[in-house]
């Protein structure tokens, strides 16, 4: 029982990380109908920005955090202008290929600037964690879970109860109609890219004290987050969260009770089962219709 509780906590913690990155996938998919394969690299870039500000320049943690997120918003805007916007009238395929290209460019740019050595980023809290009975609660995982919960509420409020959120939703549902109603579609897409980059960046900064800051950190998380998005239902915010958490828990329990080396296998087995039996995911619309 103690073992199961410990595994459950870790599973939710790692699942929350997948969920955060998956949110970025979902938002861009809803706005543009394409999957942004550079989403994981957004996490990696933000983590490296934190290392530059908080470790190399020794600026206060909160200031570094805000600057890194601002940097991500800027990167999202540049990404939109450089990768998505020139190809917006093409089919989804060239855009997806362009995002893959951009992810390789981002990873190698950071490699060229910072070198291959992983870097250390301290967490928000001085205490690494607390022992609660038989379960050890890592403070960074607690923070990640809290931030994910706050973001679920924030996203709901933002998309359902603010004008900007509703404009973004309208754009994602029908660009022509939104345009006829006087909504600037390109601005909405620009905002979506900026917000997604910030979300991806947030995930990267939060997970960096646990996984360290490395070039590969983005791609490993993004692959799982992508699976979480499909399981949850592409295009659904709640689905991304549930999918991420489910994936984290399944792979942690699978590793503990069945086989550690096949940990990733459990995640992708669940993905395959969903693709075969419920391709629209838990909550989502049919992937085939969108693609």
């Amino acid at each position, binding site marked *: 029982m103690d073992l199961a509780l410990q595994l459950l906590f870790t599973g939710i913690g790692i699942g929350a990380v997948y969920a955060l990155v998956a949110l970025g996938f979902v938002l861009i998919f809803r706005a543009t109908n394409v999957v942004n394969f550079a989403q994981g690299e957004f996490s990696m870039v933000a983590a490296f920005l934190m290392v530059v500000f908080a470790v190399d320049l020794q600026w206060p943690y909160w200031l570094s955090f805000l600057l890194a997120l601002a940097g991500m918003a800027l990167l999202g805007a540049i990404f939109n202008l450089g990768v998505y916007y020139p190809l917006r009238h093409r089919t989804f395929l060239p855009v997806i290929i362009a995002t893959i290209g951009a992810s390789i460019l981002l990873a190698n740019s950071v490699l060229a600037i910072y070198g291959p050595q992983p870097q250390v980023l301290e967490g928000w809290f001085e205490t690494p964690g607390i022992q609660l009975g038989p379960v050890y609660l890592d403070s960074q995982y607690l923070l990640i879970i809290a931030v994910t919960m706050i973001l679920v509420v924030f996203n709901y409020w933002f998309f359902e109860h603010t004008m900007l959120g509703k404009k973004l939703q309208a754009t994602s549902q029908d660009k022509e109609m939104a345009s006829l109603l006087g909504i600037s579609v390109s601005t909405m897409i620009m905002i979506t890219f900026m917000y997604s980059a910030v979300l991806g960046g947030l995930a990267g900064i939060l*997970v960096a004290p646990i996984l*360290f800051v490395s070039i590969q950190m983005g791609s490993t998380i993004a692959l799982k987050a992508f699976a979480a998005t499909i399981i949850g239902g592409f295009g659904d915010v709640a689905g991304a969260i549930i999918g991420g958490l489910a994936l984290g828990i399944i792979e942690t329990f699978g590793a503990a009770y069945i086989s550690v080396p096949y940990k990733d296998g459990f995640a992708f087995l669940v993905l395959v089962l969903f693709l075969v039996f419920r391709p629209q995911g838990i909550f989502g619309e049919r992937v085939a219709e969108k693609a």
Partner: protein
Amino acid sequence: MKLTRRDFAAGLAVGITAPYVIGSARAQGATIKIGMCVPVTGPAAEQGLWAQNGAKLALAAVNKAGGILGKQAELVIEDDQTTNPGIVLAFSKLAAQRDIVGFLGSIRSTQVHAMAPDVLKLGKPVMIGGTDPALTHMGNPWLFRFRPNDSYSGRVIADYGVNTLGKKKWAIVHSTDAFGTAGGKALASALEKLGTPAVLDQGYANQSQDFTPVVLAVKQSGADILGTYFTFENDLGIFARQLRQLGVNIPWVGSPSVVAVSSTKLAGPALYGTYGVADYAEDSSEASKAFGKAYRDAYKTAPDNQSAWPYDAVTVLAAAINKAGSTDPTKIREAILSLKKFPGAEGEYNFDQNGDGLHGYNVVRNEKGKIVYDKHIDFDN
């Protein structure tokens, strides 16, 4: 000007023979050339630079001491791009230069495997740093290894844990890639031979974001000592932190990554008190100390095994050619194999018939972030 038939024939003859004449003149040139395949680009470019530093340092010492066969030695460097196709191309470029008498290959076993067929075809000595035991056991007489192979690391870890630390209940944690699997097997078999079979043999996939299941398995096994083969330092760092967080504080003896500079930096206090095997440890011998000082004087930074083995490779190759008194590949091979108790930065070289020069490891320990030399364990067989 009118071109006569005789002019044409003479021109043709010169054109055909020129490369051979020039090549032969180069072969009898003023320097002795050593080829080096090394990452100049790609993920290991930084380590490649350290390797070049080591080789160049040895070359300078050789030349200062009179060179090879009375001539100055020269290093011809070719980029292997840190890839298998890259090293095959780099080696074929170097192999085409007939005046190169010996080569330095890679520290990565997979790259050595890739170039090995061409090495066999060329029939000239190639110094390597890859530690897959199979490399010197596949009937290729031209590969000479300058680091102890992985079969020794398992034996040293087991020997140190059982005989020095007096621990009998082992948990083995290893990555499931080629390196980790081979290392884990070597450690398990060494423990069996010592009569203390492991109570847990746990593999994990590289780039795991979480090691809680592995740590809990170690905890539940009741092991009193941990032996590990981690491939990537960030995996090791995550594991070490979670191990301590979940209250596992048993002694830990691991493969070289446990005491690598980047692991020490990433894991911080979680690795204090751990032991690791290391092929290069500065305080292990007078030769290692001398190399460490020379390297620091030249490059203002501490060396590691990435630069130590190329240093030894160039030194041994030069000594062997001088001993053989010839650049004939067979004579060089015989001279290398006849070197006994040859002091190097990595240890004392005693080449066996397979081409393995070293037969043991240093054990070092992490004392509050500082890696200190503990003891050297060598095997006769």
